[in-house]
């Protein structure tokens, strides 16, 4: 079937052309904690399972909750930091940064295993200021060939 090219990319030599971008917004029902909405966007219906998508977003939400968790470890870290006039932040990696590395690894793994084979690409929310999860939908060239 003929698919009208409505985006500005006219260079057919491009192997990976962006068709659309979907933005998963933040979910503020539990306050300012970093959580994303698990609502399945309609643009992805043809590309990926709802369960798969929801599992990805839920895992990301759990990881962000772990980053911002108020537990005994964060209290101890906070008190210690205060006693050193917060100079340890210059030398040490904070708990949040450690979890961000975990999140980056998880997103890369998901992209490798699940999303890239379906022509999708997840962008790490930290590159968008933790506002959105940007999913780039690549053009399905197999249909136009």
């Amino acid at each position, binding site marked *: 079937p003929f698919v009208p090219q409505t985006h500005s990319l006219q260079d057919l030599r491009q192997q*990976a052309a962006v068709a659309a971008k979907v*933005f998963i917004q933040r979910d503020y029902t539990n306050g300012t904690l970093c959580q994303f909405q698990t609502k399945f966007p309609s643009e992805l219906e043809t590309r990926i399972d709802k369960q798969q998508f929801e599992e990805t977003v839920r895992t990301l939400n759990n990881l962000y909750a772990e980053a911002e968790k108020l537990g005994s470890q964060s209290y101890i870290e906070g008190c210690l930091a205060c006693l050193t006039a917060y100079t340890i932040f210059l030398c040490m990696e904070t708990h949040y940064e450690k979890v961000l590395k975990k999140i980056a690894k998880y997103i890369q793994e998901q*992209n490798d295993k699940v999303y890239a084979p379906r022509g999708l690409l997840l962008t790490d929310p930290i590159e968008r200021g933790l506002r959105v999860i940007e999913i780039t939908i690549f053009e399905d060239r197999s249909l136009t060939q």
Partner: protein
Amino acid sequence: MKNCDYQQIDPKVVPTYASPSHIGTRGPRRVRRKWEVFPGKNRFYCGGRIMMAQQSGVLPLTLGLILVTTGLFFIFDCPFLVKHLSSCVPVIGAVLFVFVFITLLQTSFSDPGILPRATLEEAANVERQIDSSGNSSYRPPPRTKEVLINQQMVKLKYCFTCKMFRPPRTSHCSLCDNCVERFDHHCPWVGNCVGKRNYRFFYTFIVSLSFLTSFIFGCVSTHLAMSTTQQKHSFSYPHASFLWFRVMFELVICFFSVWSILGLSGFHTYLVASNMTTNEDIKGSWSGKSGDVATNPFSHRNVFVNCCSVLCAPLPPSLIDRRGILPVEEESAQMCHADIQLPANKNQRNMVGAPAHHPLCLKPHSKLKAELAAAASACLSVVKVWLSG
């Protein structure tokens, strides 16, 4: 066969997206970092590691007052008090001074929690959603969104400068031209905004400053009292007038500082205990209107938990990634973005100081960016394999 429905995109909105594999084929360019094209009104030093507001406000005055008063205390009062009172007086003074100085610099030079502006695609997406929400009145629709937070309706406003709906508790600082998360206030005394990331530094600064000023006030008064009782003829010395001048200077500064700083510390302790910001307190966001008993939906209803969540929570990362290397196509997009907006203050960037590799300035985030870039290019190669297969 699957029917792929593609979302219509306005061709004028989406910039030409070059494949990242073409980075590096444009020839040698000077490596540019993201702080150089930062759209807000901030000044960056030390290769982007230090940031401040555009106007330093009265930060030099704050530093000057603290240094001069503490210096006079150490030079003139400490020797006397060590001899007549105790030798731990200068030790306590030194510890307090170090705390005050370090936390002041941290408050002034760190990122308060600035939200990076929305990318062009994000902004287009939000604009489309606002337009499609179907408001047919003759006035332009108010750009607010209501969300339910902890069973309470909170209004989120749309920021026209940053082109996004502001998260709750975020406010746009007009002096810095940035949206700041958990915006407390813009403090001219420290020359920076006080927000989510540097509130604990600010709080420690004002608490330790109130201790320092009270301590110096007490020591100077003790010195004065002891020297007048012990040496009745001390004021006949040639430098008696200087002594009086110095003592009066210290007492006056400390007296006013003690009352104002102590008052400010008390106010912020109340804010911390009830998990509120100065901005919310001034605007009366949670004080209830028209008979509604509105409470703070972010408060944990427990003073101890509130204090811990504000002061001891894990320090959030800086979202603006000022030391990150600017990708080539993003740079051109940013230039377009900046042109569409008000003219960016690129002329006012101060590139002070050679960016020598400072060991203490190492941020793991820049390593994270390099890893992410590598991962993204790896994924794109997988996509190409999928498309050709």
